[in-house]
């Protein structure tokens, strides 16, 4: 179990306990957090679950695997701290993670 904080574009904070093994995307979708579309359902095929991860956390969570950056090329306003939330798996180690949701996904 890990507490994940989703900060929406208008600075609304949603802190949710997400089960280990789920992804940060699933935690958002299952709890109706606005701003994460996840059109492809977690297949790393659409870039609509795009989030920004604050610097300190960005280096702590598991690194991007092949293909994630390719999809991020297509995301709305990607930055150097962009991630696809469907590729961040929840574990005790990421308890306290905070992600920022972009103003739109496309």
């Amino acid at each position: 179990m890990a507490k994940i904080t989703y900060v929406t574009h208008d600075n609304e904070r949603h802190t949710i306990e997400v089960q280990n093994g789920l992804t940060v995307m699933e935690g958002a979708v299952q709890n109706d957090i606005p701003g994460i579309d996840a059109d492809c359902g977690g297949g790393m095929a659409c870039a609509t679950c795009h989030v920004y991860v604050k610097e300190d956390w960005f280096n702590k969570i598991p690194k991007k695997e092949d293909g994630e950056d390719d999809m991020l090329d297509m995301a709305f306003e990607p930055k150097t701290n962009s991630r696809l939330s469907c590729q961040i798996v929840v574990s005790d180690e990421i308890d306290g993670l905070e992600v920022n949701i972009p103003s739109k996904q496309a």
Partner: protein
Amino acid sequence: MNKTDALIIGAGPTGLFTAHQLKLIGLDCEIVDNLDKIGGQCIELYPDKPIYDIPAVPECTGEELTNNLISQLKPFDIKFHLSERVEEVKKEDTSWLVKTSSGNTFLTPNVIIAGGVGSFEPRKFATKECEQFENKSLFYSVKDKNIFKGKTVSIFGGGDSALDWAIELSKDCKINLVHRRDEFRGVQATVDKMNELVKLGKINLFTKYQMANAHGDQKLESIDIKHDNNEIKNLKSDYVLGFFGLIMQLGPIANWGLNLNKKTIEVDTERFETNQKGIYAVGDICNYPGKLKLILSGFHEGALAARACFKLARPNEKYRFEFTTTSSNLLKRLGKKE
């Protein structure tokens, strides 16, 4: 005006198998899809990715699945309308009048929406200023490359489309190629060719830059691009091309008076009919308690929706359930029996 027993919106796996089921029970159908090819998400998002949960198919890629579904449709004559988006669905007596973006019209008692997560549209620049130049100086696809001759063209993106057009247009245009990082996801040979042209001065390459602003009165004059370190560069540009792939948008479906739940359409699980009589939704786009977004679910939903269509298309006949192993009717339709 095209008249048909059922119009299918979406040529993905669910739409294709629904067409199979319609033809098998003796109904006509036509298929409209906004993409320029058959296969939907399977072909657009993951043609090379293996799928492991299609019943009786231990492993196949999105492309193989699409090709198999197309060959399963071989016995039937089905008209596809590709690169067309359905814009309007209107009630006309007991039928539906359907209009597409190319001006095609259909009159049909049954409309089956097999639209996945909506239609594929190009992803656009995030910068607001870009909108006013769209389809004039700024494009997301190339229709006529001759308009670029002798001009300065700024191309954005890191995939094959961006690279291919940068290489092609560098023959007789001044090219700026702008990408948000140093790595390109195009095929290596194309990346090598591009790098060679950069060395020869045929392509000006700007990496770690993104679009920041667009300037001009009626016509585009220049653009600002912004580096990861916030430095801004102004590039004189007559044209801008953006290649960021495609995104799925629900689009006009939202205006057809259907009960929507987020980006999905609510249906019953007997006929997969929406709140509008004669409009059905199947596959990823439909929603009901227990819905699974699996291809196999789409096949089941399409089979039931097809049977429901029979009633409205042939009001004076009675649908009879038959097996392909034994029914001479079905075998005839499949071309297996005289």
